[in-house]
Structures are given as structure tokens and as C-alpha cells.
């Protein structure tokens, strides 16, 4: 069992620095476990850099889920049918849930959610840049489902085998639940593409705007990716950025054809020799600019997140104060009876 609680006790032990001889032995055991494709669990010894890399990556992933609610939530109140509205609401809810699973995984490494949220709110930790693009029309909801979630799934499926147990388990759950996200997006776009000329144009416009940013989601090219090599050795990462990007492009080309939509890349074509599609150059200047905070919605997204957090402070305080007054109710017994209702 790998609980966040388990890490708490382990954290205090880690503080009493083990002697150098022990560290070498631990390092050896860790390397062997990773090499043998075993999972590292919260209470196992792990190199500080491994822990830091995981916290950074899981936190960024969690933040992306939470910030990622915003562009789609932007359309909940305007969804054009009740069926679509229910689907979109369920999807945005899943994103909140996935954020929570991931914060939960990060907490097993000894970093609390409040600390992580604080780092998000103060800009010290990032979220996926894709969410700094605006959702301008209803078709954007479809394009996000198809392309953004599609890219995310391509990225995430290998993470289900990540060397860190709690992260891998969170990803298994997330991938399972997300299977509907991409399909609903595709179905939404298909309805538009086959709909009125205005709807078709709306769908094409959305794909035009989301295609390139989706390709950027896989991160910088392999030769410029600063964390990749070490993460591959640690089996946090299993495939390189370029490898996953290529896989995604190859998947999307026939899907776009079935949709009756085009992908906005004149250089996109099948390369018989490589057995893959060639595609045009990505504008990495745009990528780095958005990452630096100059994207269309960076400020808007983080401001909304901060505002929700700040405006909710009195609510969280009230609940904590209530719990303190009624301590008998915290951690009591007999919860199973109560839980059976759920």
C-alpha cells in the first residue's frame, strides 16, 4: 500500500541523513529496482533528484488538469444541446478529479497540495501551455477533445508504466476515465463537419487553430529537451518527445480525413521510406513565448485560478473552524455504515 500518509513518517527518517555507505547501498537497490522494471513506492529510498523530478512533473500535470478546466468550462453555459452540455460538464468534472488524483500522487512524495497550489499561483510551477490558448467557438470544445486530449493520451499511456508506483496508478485510472474525452470531441467535430456550411467552417477553423499548439504539447525537440535523458533512464518517461509527436501525427492524419477536415500543414505527407508522415516545421518561438507567459490567456487563466482560491478562503476556513469545534466528529468510528450509502 502506498499512501500519502506512509510518506509522512518516512519523511522524518529521510531528514536524519543516512551515512554515505548506506546511501550507496540504497542507490544500488534503487537502480536495480528501476532496471528490473519494478515500481518505486513512496517509502522506498530514492535519489533526491528523482523525487524532485517527479514532484515537478506530477505537479505540472495536476496543474494542467485544473487550469485545463477553464477553456472548456468557458462553454458549459452555452452548450448548444442538453446532451452536449451534460457531456461537457462530466468532462470538466473529470479534469477536476484527475487533478485531485495527481495532487494525491504528488503528496506521497512529501509535498503537500497547498504548497503545490501556492507554487502554481505564484508562477513558480508551470502547467501545460496549451491551455493558454482561448476557446473562441463551440468547435474549440471538439478540437480540444480530439487534438489536445488525443495528444495528452499519447503522452499519458506510457506513463501508466512509469517507475513511480503512485503516479503510474493515477495514470491508469486517468487513462481509463479519459477514454471518453477524445471520442466525444471527435464526435462533436464530426457533427459540425457534416452539419451546415457554417458549422463545417467553425470546425475547420478550430482545427486550424489547435493543430500546431497540440503538436507543441509533446515538448521541445529531443535535442533541446533538458530533462528527457535522465527521465528516460529513471523510466519516468518511456518515449522521447519527437517519437510521441510522430506517433500522434500518424494517428491524426487518417482521423482528419474521416472527419472531412484538413490539417493546416502544406508539408504534411506520407513518407514511404520512413513509414511515417512528414510534417512541417513547428514554430518553437511561439512555444517558448507562450511558456514564458506571453500566450493569449496566461494571465487570464492564472488570475481566475487565484481568484477562485482567494475567494474560497473563507469557506475553507469555516469548515476547518467547524471541524475544530466538533472534534468528536473527526476520525471517529463506524464510518462503514455511513459509507454504504455511497
Amino acid at each position, binding site marked *: 500500500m502506498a*499512501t*500519502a500518509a506512509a510518506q509522512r513518517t*518516512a519523511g522524518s527518517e529521510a531528514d536524519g541523513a543516512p551515512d554515505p555507505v548506506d546511501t550507496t547501498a540504497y542507490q544500488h537497490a534503487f537502480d536495480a529496482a528501476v532496471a528490473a522494471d519494478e515500481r518505486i513506492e513512496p*517509502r522506498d529510498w530514492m535519489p533526491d533528484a528523482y523525487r524532485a523530478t517527479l514532484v515537478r512533473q506530477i505537479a505540472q500535470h495536476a496543474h494542467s488538469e485544473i487550469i485545463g478546466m477553464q477553456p472548456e468550462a468557458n462553454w458549459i453555459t452555452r452548450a448548444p444541446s442538453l446532451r452536449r452540455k451534460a457531456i461537457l460538464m462530466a468532462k470538466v468534472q473529470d479534469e477536476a478529479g484527475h487533478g485531485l488524483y495527481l495532487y494525491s500522487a504528488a503528496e506521497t512524495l512529501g509535498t503537500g497540495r497547498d504548497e503545490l497550489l501556492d507554487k502554481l499561483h505564484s508562477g513558480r510551477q508551470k502547467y501545460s501551455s496549451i491551455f493558454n490558448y482561448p476557446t473562441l467557438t463551440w468547435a474549440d470544445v471538439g478540437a480540444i477533445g480530439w487534438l489536445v486530449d488525443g495528444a495528452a493520451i499519447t503522452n499519458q499511456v506510457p506513463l501508466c508504466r512509469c517507475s513511480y508506483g503512485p503516479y503510474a496508478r493515477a495514470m491508469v485510472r486517468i487513462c481509463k476515465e479519459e477514454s471518453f474525452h477524445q471520442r466525444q470531441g471527435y464526435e462533436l467535430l464530426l457533427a459540425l463537419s457534416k452539419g451546415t456550411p457554417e458549422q463545417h467552417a467553425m470546425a475547420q477553423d478550430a482545427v486550424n487553430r489547435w493543430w500546431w499548439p497540440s503538436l507543441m504539447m509533446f515538448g521541445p525537440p529531443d535535442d533541446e529537451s533538458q530533462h528527457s535523458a535522465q527521465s528516460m533512464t529513471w523510466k519516468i518517461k518511456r518515449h522521447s518527445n519527437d517519437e510521441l509527436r510522430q506517433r500522434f501525427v500518424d494517428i491524426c492524419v487518417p482521423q482528419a480525413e474521416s472527419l472531412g477536415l484538413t490539417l493546416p500543414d502544406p508539408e504534411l505527407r506520407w513518407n514511404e521510406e520512413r513509414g511515417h508522415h512528414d510534417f512541417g516545421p513547428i514554430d518553437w518561438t511561439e512555444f517558448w513565448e507562450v511558456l514564458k507567459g506571453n500566450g493569449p490567456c496566461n494571465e487570464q487563466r492564472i488570475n481566475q485560478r487565484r481568484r477562485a482560491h482567494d475567494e474560497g478562503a473563507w469557506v*475553507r476556513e469555516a469548515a476547518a473552524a467547524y471541524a475544530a469545534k466538533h472534534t468528536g466528529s473527526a476520525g471517529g468510528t463506524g*464510518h462503514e455504515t455511513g459509507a454504504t450509502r455511497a
Partner: protein
Amino acid sequence: MSTTDWPLWEVFVRSRRGLSHTHAGSLHAPDAELALRNARDLYTRRGEGVSIWVVPATAITASSPDEKDPFFEPAADKPYRHPTFYEIPEGVKHL
């Protein structure tokens, strides 16, 4: 813990009758009642459970990594605890 930081709870879900509760993850809640409800909303929204336990994370005592060997190794060399340890002639049933 600041006034707005809610404590951490570990969540265990019985996915259906006949199975034991298994660890599903954790969440934050100010008290047990809300922890239970948050767990219901978060971990069983696709009908994954029939019963939930929530446990304050601080109430869990775990074996430490240093104790790994003395804790678990003695159990590893008692194969006679496992049914496959015993050879039974072929054709003998209900064993």
C-alpha cells in the same frame, strides 16, 4: 497547518460486495463527514464502489523501509504456508 489547509485522508473503496476495501487514493477534507462525501464524489462517480472508508492520513502507521527485511523476509521462507508446497497424487479431488 494553516487555518485553510485541510488535513489529508486516505480513501479505501469496496468495489463490490464480497471484496475487501482497497486503497483508492487520498483527498483533503476538514473532517470525517466531508471526507466521506468527497470520497464518494471523487472516487465512486462511475459507480466504482458500494462502501467507503476514510482514514486520517496521520493515523496510519507504516513499516519503515529499514525494517523491510526483518519485516517481510521471515514470511518469504515459509513456503509450507502456501498450498502449492504440497504434492498431491494426480486424480485426488477436493483438496
